[in-house]
């Protein structure tokens, strides 16, 4: 996980007058599991298609292992793609589907047979070789699409929402299966999803995108615990996002109440956004802190209770294993390390941010 395998340098792409990617820079390291995460239409598939060679950027270049491959056609690239809707060859058997790439490369029959068998075993579909794609379930077809790509031993596998069409249980099984596969093969995965949980579970690195801009790049922990802006905070999991004022280093005023925090260097009396995860909001007896409120909603969620608490005019989302019935008067405490301070949007990049609600 050291050297850069793929480098996207100043990539821009428009369709007509629609700017889809604007001056995007991104590198992908060898053996990395990198996920492009973002809402529908933010340009994830377009980015993947540029790496795969199905779309050429208007500006910028695509580097692979130090060579410029921007104008190389897809069949000459050392990457293989698992398409959003499988895209199997319906007129061929499963075995012929998997053998397609190897036949093109004129491998010997014995080699092809071995490989097909190995690939079918890898995706747990031993003995399906002579079936037709239409006779398989969605999850099985998905695994065939993966098998068809990996027999070619690509350096990089591009996966476009490969689990999007599957039900929850199957999706979770397949997530583990994909991670196992990746470890077994030791190759680089570039994975596209708009499911934040999937991204958090599977990735080494997450790239959060919105409207053609990269909002943040980081490990799942960094993205979750230290979102750089309100969009990321909102997109990754539930959160309370509060417009606040940084009084000075390590002190922030949230809803007219001063809270100790650990962030510095935001200046004095500067407007900022604060994000607090619902599981980090602690409910105490009334008047234990200066922020008093009342529980207005309560839902049982299995592992925890989800509550809405109105305090100083703001509706807080709170997750807690302790039950506070609707109407309970409480006060709110947040420990300093759980208060995440973010700059207000200033740059062009962050103006692209849009928050629902």
């Amino acid at each position, binding site marked *: 996980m050291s050297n850069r395998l793929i480098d996207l340098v100043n990539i821009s792409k428009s369709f007509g007058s629609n700017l889809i990617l604007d001056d995007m820079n991104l590198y992908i390291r060898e053996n990395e599991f990198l996920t492009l995460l973002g809402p529908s239409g933010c340009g994830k598939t377009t980015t993947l298609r540029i790496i*795969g*060679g*199905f779309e050429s950027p208007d500006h910028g270049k695509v580097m692979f292992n130090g060579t410029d491959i921007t104008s190389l*056609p*897809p*069949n000459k690239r050392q*990457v*293989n*793609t698992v*398409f*959003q*809707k499988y*895209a*199997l*060859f*319906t*007129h061929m058997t499963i075995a012929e589907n998997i053998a*397609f*790439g190897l036949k*093109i*490369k004129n491998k010997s029959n014995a080699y092809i047979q071995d490989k097909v068998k190995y690939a079918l075993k890898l995706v747990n579909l031993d003995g399906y070789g002579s079936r037709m794609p239409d006779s398989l379930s969605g999850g099985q077809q998905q695994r065939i699409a993966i098998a*068809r*790509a990996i027999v*070619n031993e690509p350096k990089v596998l591009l996966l476009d929402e490969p689990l999007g069409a599957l039900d929850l249980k199957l999706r979770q099984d397949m997530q583990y299966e994909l991670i196992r596969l990746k470890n077994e093969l030791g190759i680089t995965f570039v994975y596209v999803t708009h499911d934040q949980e999937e991204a958090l579970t599977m990735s080494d690195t997450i790239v959060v995108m919105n409207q053609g801009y990269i909002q943040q790049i980081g490990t799942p922990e960094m993205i979750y615990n230290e979102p750089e802006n309100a969009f990321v905070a909102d997109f990754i999991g539930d959160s309370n996002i509060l417009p606040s004022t940084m009084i000075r280093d390590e002190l922030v005023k949230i809803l007219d109440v001063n809270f100790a925090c650990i962030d510095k260097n935001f200046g004095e009396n500067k407007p900022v956004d604060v994000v607090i995860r619902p599981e980090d909001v602690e409910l105490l007896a009334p008047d234990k802190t200066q922020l008093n409120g009342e529980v207005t909603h309560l839902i049982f969620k299995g592992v925890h209770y989800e509550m809405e608490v109105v305090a100083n005019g703001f509706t807080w989302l709170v997750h807690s294993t302790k039950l506070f019935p609707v109407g309970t008067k409480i006060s709110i405490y947040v420990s300093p390390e759980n208060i995440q301070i973010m700059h207000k949007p200033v740059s062009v990049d962050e103006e692209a941010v849009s928050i629902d609600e």
Partner: protein
Amino acid sequence: MNKKWLSFPYILWAAGFIIIPLAMVFYYGFTDRDGIFTMENILAILSPEHRKALFLALVLSFFSTLICILLAYPLSMILAKMGNARNSFLVLIFILPMWMNFLLRTLAWQTLLEKNGVINSILHFLHLPGIAIINTPAAIILGMVYNFLPFMVLPIYNALLKIDPNVINAARDLGANGLQTFIKVTLPLSMPGVISGITMVFVPALTTFVISTLLGGSKILLIGNVIEQEFTQSGNWNLGSGLSVVLMIFIVISIIFSTLSDKDGEGTAI
């Protein structure tokens, strides 16, 4: 909630205009003038002049169908590749001549190709030697191709449109170049369209008598002309019906061929 009675008018229509005439063709085909059963009308196909007419019809339809495929396939690919807004207009332009009467279109070709027709007049005006294709098999093939080409284009175009672009991308992704992708993926996936196109061109070409009469003159007789003459000139309905039954066998064979090849039931006939 049984709405079967709704199909009643159709059944009536089918009985009146399909089943009864068909039954009559079979009746006349298997009887002589006195209404006595005979195989003579069927076996009449074996006479040299009938065999020749059938053979010529098969050959000309075969070549017309082949030429139609060769013209229609690239054309359909171009149409299918275009953006949607433009291509519906192009498809319309293509269908437009089909709305004009078949007879008129063929007559137009006659006028164009005649010895003193439009083309030869222009050639003459330019001091070029004239062409003499009117009243040749080539003129008949030209007429067949011109009239039936749209019936080949539309099913192939529909079949090509149905192919998921990502399936093509997948082939490229797996290392196939443009030609390999075409041969291994595009062509087989569009086969149902080609096959319905073949049926839709071959069957009417095989049975036509209008095109051969107008562009082939009186010397070139196709099986369709022979049958027509039995009905309209010789007044021998029995012989005409017998030969029609034989022709029907050939049509049924070609339709069976096409349904067998189109095993996925993805017929794209319009």
